[in-house]
């Protein structure tokens, strides 16, 4: 993950980066002692987050110039498949996805959708990159084995790495003075989201 962790946005985020990508939830998966309750909470809240992210991405695509749209449209298609995957997974495990959003999830989604409408597309690229690169690096720190191998693989596979790489290129291609501040804001939401999955 060095190619990403050496990027300006991450370097300048300072301590926020590790706070957003290291979590007790993930350590518990690695150590094989993740409580079922925490997993169920994560699954439902991450599903609600992905639904909000779909809105964010759709609005962002509409504001983005044509040359950059292709990458984002592929991301939206992947997100649609991810929603299917969440729904199938929840059904298989007998988990209810029809739950109220946790306040932390809600704050993150409100931030994304409010930003999509009110920020310029260059900043939205940095927000999207922040959400995806932090998930990539957080899950990639785990070996894709054990009962949660499928989950680890989903956010650490080569195709996802390539998508995140393309997002970083877009951020560099379309710089904006406000990218860093909003990238940092994403990392704060990621940090809070991981805390919520563990603490409830």
């Amino acid at each position: 993950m060095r190619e990403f962790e050496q990027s300006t946005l991450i370097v300048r985020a300072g301590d926020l980066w590790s706070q957003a990508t290291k979590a007790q939830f993930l350590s518990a998966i690695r150590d094989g002692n993740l409580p079922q309750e925490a997993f169920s909470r994560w699954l439902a809240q991450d599903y609600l987050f992905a639904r909000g992210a779909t809105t964010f991405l759709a609005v962002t695509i509409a504001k983005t110039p044509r040359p950059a749209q292709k990458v984002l449209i592929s991301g939206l298609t992947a997100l649609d498949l991810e929603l299917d995957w969440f729904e199938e997974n929840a059904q298989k495990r007998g988990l209810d996805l029809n739950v109220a959003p946790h306040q932390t999830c809600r704050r993150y989604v409100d931030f994304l959708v409010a930003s999509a409408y009110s920020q310029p597309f260059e900043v939205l690229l940095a927000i999207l990159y922040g959400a995806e690169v932090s998930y990539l690096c957080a899950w990639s720190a785990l070996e894709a084995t054990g009962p949660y191998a499928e989950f680890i693989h989903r956010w650490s596979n080569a195709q996802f790495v390539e998508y995140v790489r393309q997002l970083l290129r877009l951020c560099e291609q379309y710089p904006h003075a406000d990218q860093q501040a909003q990238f940092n804001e994403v990392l704060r939401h990621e940090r809070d989201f991981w805390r919520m999955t563990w603490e409830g």
Partner: protein
Amino acid sequence: MLHGLLWQLNSEITRRCLEHPFVRGLADGTLEREVFKRYVAQDAFFLRTFLRAYALAAAKSDDLEQVRLFHQLMAGVVDELKLHAGYAAKLGIDLGHVEPYPATSAYTNFLLRIAWHGSLAEIVAAMVPCMRLYTFLGSELSGSLRPEHPYEDWIKTYSSDDFRAPARQLESLLDNVAVDCPTGRDAYRYAMQCELDFFSAPMEVPP
């Protein structure tokens, strides 16, 4: 009436607002000046978003009477911001560079999401709590006024007819444009919860 039902359903949160140490401090005048200054700065930041939400609500209405009301409500917010500007001048607060607290961002992002993305009914349901709560607090606190009360301006503003009238108009609009539904209840409740958190934030931040 929907506005009365929603107010009743959230009486627990509004009671907690009234009993909140910040509001108690405003009532008896013991609220630390530094805490109040932080609150004024955050509230001014918030009101600019509130203003935008009214504008977006107006943009989503095709009823000229409703647009006129939103126009008046926007003028009310602009007047309310004068109170903040007055405090800023008197107390030395820089309203030009306000960094929002997480509780403020949570509230403004929520309002902006609803205002851009939600229906007119949802927007109004999300905006009534602020207006109604401040009318309620103003009225409850007006009994605490005494000569030389340090927060006299604040209490007088929110207990005045000038503030009560638009709050009532917005509630009437809610009754006209919204029906009782889970999304409306949720928007109202969440906004009221954001109001409560808004009072806590300036007390939690170290000076």
